């Protein structure tokens, strides 16, 4: 049961195709786990259809339909986009968009240690200035340094769970945060907590130890 969802404005912008690749990967992964949000995206896509309908249109060049049919008859249909992508049954606990990107289980990734109790894996997705999409792995009971957000952050639990001042987050739950939030998540079971995190600006850590860690953590 997912209790914390993605905001409506993010779901609508996802349906509009107006999110960056990282944020889009995040939303796509969530809607593979969450029927409520998948339904809302579907509704927003119907809005997209209505917005196509309401356009007046700009005329196409004459003969363009015949050109199209020639192209369909002559172009080989085996382009990469048409190939069926197979997901791997062993990885069915990973939502499909993330699974197809990783191609292996969380345990097989080359995690980089960033601080005691925290490992990260930067995902190979594009992004603009300061945007990053990563997996973060918190050891059980480990307290993440308090940090605040200058920008916007989306976090979703992929394995285990964590708690912070605002509540408890379990698999599929999403925490959306902006500059006003100051938090200190703790992995609160005896299992590693793995989160998918999208940030559009670097995080800011607080306190002396954190200031020492910061350049080295790079997050």
């Amino acid at each position, binding site marked *: 049961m997912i209790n914390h969802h993605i905001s409506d404005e993010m779901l*609508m912008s996802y349906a509009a195709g107006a999110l960056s690749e990282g944020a889009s990967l995040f939303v796509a992964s969530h809607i593979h786990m969450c029927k409520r949000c*998948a339904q809302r995206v579907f509704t927003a896509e119907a809005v*997209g*259809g209505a917005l196509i309908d309401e356009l007046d249109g700009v005329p196409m060049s004459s003969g363009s*339909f015949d050109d199209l049919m020639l192209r369909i008859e002559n172009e080989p249909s085996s382009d990469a986009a048409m190939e069926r*992508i197979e997901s791997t049954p062993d990885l069915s606990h990973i939502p499909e968009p993330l699974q197809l990107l990783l191609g292996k289980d969380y345990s097989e990734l080359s995690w980089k240690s960033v601080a005691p109790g925290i490992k990260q894996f930067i995902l190979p997705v594009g992004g603009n200035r300061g945007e990053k999409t990563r997996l973060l792995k918190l050891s059980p009971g480990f307290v993440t340094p308090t940090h605040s957000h200058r920008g916007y952050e989306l976090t979703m639990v992929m394995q285990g769970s964590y708690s912070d001042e605002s509540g408890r987050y379990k698999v599929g739950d999403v925490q959306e945060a902006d500059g006003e939030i100051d938090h200190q998540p703790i992995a609160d079971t005896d299992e590693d907590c793995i989160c998918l995190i999208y940030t559009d600006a670097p995080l800011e850590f607080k306190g002396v130890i954190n200031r020492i860690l910061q350049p080295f953590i790079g997050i």
Partner: protein
Amino acid sequence: MPYQQREIVASPSGGTSVPPNRLSQLLATMSATQDRGSFRELYDYFAPRLKQFYMRSGTDEAMAEEMVQETFVLVWRKSHLYDPSRSAASTWIFTIARNHRIDRLRREKRFVQKEEHFFEAELVDDGSQDRDVDQPKMSLIINEALAELPPNQAELVRLSFYEEVTHAEIASRLQLPLGTVKSRLRLAFGRLRKKLAEFET
């Protein structure tokens, strides 16, 4: 409240006018039989609209036209994935065009995803029954709901869909605080969803 099939007014410059259920029938027929006549009717309706859609993303006319052709190659080849009980033709074609726009116009690549999933309302199988959606009715309600949105909310919805701009880009373009952009989009979607509640399970 009864919804009557409204006569759609012919547009002056390009796209023909066809009622939404007719479009969905055409796409379903084409999907079943590869019927060229149905494909032609769909093309006459959607191609000029998609051309305008791509031009609003900032492409020049030649590029927009090329992208329309590419889109219709995809529509032809993917038509077997279309299920008229699940989505209107315009919704289905919108998702193909949206993805194609990302593939062609962005530096960054779209992450790998099974295309067929874009056409499913329910990615999560929770054992509940799929429901047929009354597409013509849904289309009319969406049109009405869009027309009733406050202009400052409708503007942001159209910017998002037509120009694929992020919240931050909208904020800087319209000189609005980011929080205002988000709350207007949230309010707009809330109003749209309220009208469409009967179509969500």
